[in-house]
């Protein structure tokens, strides 16, 4: 088996370094191809590692590749090492694979942007960070990756930093993630305090030494971190705003990879959840609630990307539902499938935006199927996949989640099923508004002539992702024991802590049929309601359009609600005390500096006086010590 995991982050990191220094010289389009090449190389290494791992017996598929000790201070030994096991390898494969495809697409999408090289600098750094996050064998090192992806996300959301909306969206994402990161840090403190190690295998091996209370605290703190990164209630409002970034970024970071890091973290630490009490229930409820809330909001949005963004939040809610009910394999399955169809949807949306010269309001689109047949087909594939129409990927993946939810608690299943109808509906709504109906874009001034289909560098990735979105379900088929590839593959990692569904084969068939029916209901609804008209205000209540007023509520509570308090804080505490302290320190230091530099007269004899005074002082001290 190939023990060269370090090469995987190293390639994009090298690409980052080269592009950061020579990016502009390398230029357009070579810089993009270089970046794509590095990620593809990582993907190739992941494939070789996979081939080697398949040859090993199941019990030998996990190893830690320690490179060196990064911080060897007293008890804290932070090792730079990679934990390679079936779980991290699945993550690595789909992260590098999807990243490579999206890099490729970006070569076309960003072709006319003046920040072309800079874009790929960040993108490569992101992939390297994501791989570190996924493979790190030590929580501190995981945190390095965790922060790294957050930083890249911030840079890329604010990529067009001269647009105020982009800049403030970047800031919002940054702040919300800080809240989550605080949870991560605290969880590390708690775990280190109890176990004196932060190595992931060591933590999982010594869970028995943890008291239930400590385990619960650590698990809840990690879950807080996960809600920030994965945009769950209550920290989900940054993700829709993050759509200010370029579309490939939305596809890669804010759909396929980074936002699912929270789910991965939960699965990675799943034995900890078992040691804790009630945390799983909390996760399941938060997950399913997020799924429903986000799906209702998605049904009313008018921005082509925001619909998909809320859909992402909703889908990640499903993944957390899976984690909460102990269906870890199903969570990973849905994550992979979601990466395929959601990046497909984003890239198709990007293609539409590209063709309409950066127009994003779906109410100004329509009838595009004639002009963009490839995009049309790709979007339709993505829609039907996410809707759960058999036999496309989400049918299997979401089905697996719902089976386990049903077996755990019927209430969870009901909410999940309702969400499934919404899912099929909102994506269908967008599909019909964009590709059917009147050609409303003709009223837009920027568009001269007909919209154009995207170039082949953008169509190629769409085709690949369409195929994957369609057949992704093959990864893990139910009904037959030899077809559940993913389940048996992940069994060495999560098998012992997974909860098995009590639904028999008959029940599984019944649920599968129900799922299909639900999907068809959603699709039909969308078709009935949006096939022709794009204007149905009664179907878009303001409450939902404004995202359940969450932002406004946060605004009221945290900003305006305590206007007096805020005003007090801003004007008195902030201005007088904090700013005063900071500025006072600064000006005090400067004042001191200016004073001190007057001693530095430039005259040799003054310098000599300094030496002599110092000498006299030290001599005096020594003589006092000597008792003279």
């Amino acid at each position: 088996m190939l023990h060269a995991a370090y090469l995987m982050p190293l390639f994009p990191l090298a690409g980052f370094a080269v592009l950061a220094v020579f990016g502009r010289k390398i230029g357009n389009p070579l810089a993009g191809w270089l970046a794509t090449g590095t990620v593809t190389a990582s993907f190739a290494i992941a494939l070789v590692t996979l081939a080697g791992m398949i040859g090993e017996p199941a019990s030998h598929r996990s190893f830690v590749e320690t490179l060196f000790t990064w911080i060897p201070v007293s008890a804290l030994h932070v090792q730079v090492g990679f934990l390679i096991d079936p779980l991290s390898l699945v993550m690595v494969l789909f992260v590098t694979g999807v990243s490579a495809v999206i890099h490729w697409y970006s070569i076309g999408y960003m072709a006319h942007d003046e920040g072309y090289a800079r874009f790929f600098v960040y993108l490569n750094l992101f992939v390297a960070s994501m791989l570190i996050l996924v493979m790190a064998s030590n929580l501190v090192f995981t945190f390095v990756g965790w922060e790294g992806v957050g930083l890249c996300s911030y840079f890329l959301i604010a990529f067009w930093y001269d647009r105020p909306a982009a800049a403030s969206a970047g800031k919002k994402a940054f702040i919300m993630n800080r809240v989550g990161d605080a949870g991560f840090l605290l969880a590390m403190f708690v775990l280190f305090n109890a176990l004196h190690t932060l190595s992931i295998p060591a933590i999982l091996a010594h869970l028995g030494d943890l008291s239930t209370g400590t385990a619960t605290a650590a698990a809840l703190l990690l879950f807080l971190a996960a809600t920030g990164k994965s945009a769950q209630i209550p920290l989900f409002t940054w993700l829709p705003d993050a759509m200010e970034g370029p579309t490939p970024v939305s596809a890669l970071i804010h759909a396929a990879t980074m936002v699912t890091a929270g789910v991965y973290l939960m699965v990675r630490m799943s034995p900890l959840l078992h040691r804790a009490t009630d945390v799983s229930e909390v996760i399941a409820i938060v997950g399913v609630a997020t799924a429903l809330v986000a799906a209702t909001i998605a049904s009313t949005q008018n921005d082509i990307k925001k619909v998909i963004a809320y859909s992402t939040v909703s889908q990640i809610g499903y993944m957390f539902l899976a984690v909460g009910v102990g269906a870890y394999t199903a969570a990973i399955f849905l994550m992979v499938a979601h990466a395929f169809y959601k990046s497909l949807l984003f890239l198709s949306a990007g293609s539409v935006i590209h063709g309409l010269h950066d127009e994003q309001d779906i109410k100004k689109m329509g009838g595009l199927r004639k002009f963009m047949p490839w995009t049309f087909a790709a979007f339709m594939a993505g829609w039907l996949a996410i809707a759960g129409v058999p036999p496309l990927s989400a049918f299997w993946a979401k089905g697996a989640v719902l089976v386990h939810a049903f077996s755990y608690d019927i209430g969870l299943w009901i909410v999940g099923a309702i969400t499934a109808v919404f899912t099929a509906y909102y994506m269908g709504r967008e599909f019909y508004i964009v590709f059917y109906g009147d050609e409303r874009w003709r009223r837009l001034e920027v568009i001269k002539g007909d919209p154009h289909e995207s170039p082949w560098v953008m169509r190629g990735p769409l085709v690949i992702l369409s195929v994957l979105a369609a057949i992704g379900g093959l990864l893990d088929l139910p009904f037959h024991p030899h077809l559940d590839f993913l389940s048996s593959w992940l069994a060495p990692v999560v098998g012992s802590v997974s909860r098995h569904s009590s639904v028999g084969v008959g029940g599984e068939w019944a649920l599968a049929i129900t799922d299909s029916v639900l999907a068809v209901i959603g699709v039909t609804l969308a078709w009935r309601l949006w096939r022709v008209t794009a204007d149905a205000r009664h179907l878009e209540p303001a409450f939902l359009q404004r995202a359940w007023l969450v932002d406004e509520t946060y605004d009221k509570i945290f900003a305006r609600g305590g206007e007096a308090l805020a005003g007090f804080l801003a004007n008195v505490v902030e201005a007088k005390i904090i700013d005063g302290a900071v500025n006072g320190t600064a000006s005090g230091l400067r004042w001191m500096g200016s004073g001190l530099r007057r001693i530095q007269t430039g005259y040799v004899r003054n310098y000599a006086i300094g030496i002599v005074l110092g000498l006299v002082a030290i001599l005096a001290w020594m003589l006092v010590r000597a008792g003279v």
Partner: protein
Amino acid sequence: MTDVSGAWYLSLAAALFGIGAFGLLVRRNVLVMFMCVELMLNAANLTFVTFARMLNDIAGQAVVFFVLVVAAAEVVVGLAIIVAIFRRRREATADDLHILRG
């Protein structure tokens, strides 16, 4: 002669050292300042010799030769620097040099 104890030599050396240090502080002429440094070095030499005599140890006397060589090297380099800077001036005053400060 034999009545003069080591303490006298040591005191003389300390006085020479002090005079040298004081001279460096108060004089402006670079050459004189430099001579003051030489005076301090020789005060150290005298101290070495005295202790060597008191301890009955030859090593302290040997040190003096090293110091003399070092002092000679310092003279060569120091005078060269002084000449290079003050070549075109009538006086060699250390206070002329204060472009660099702050």
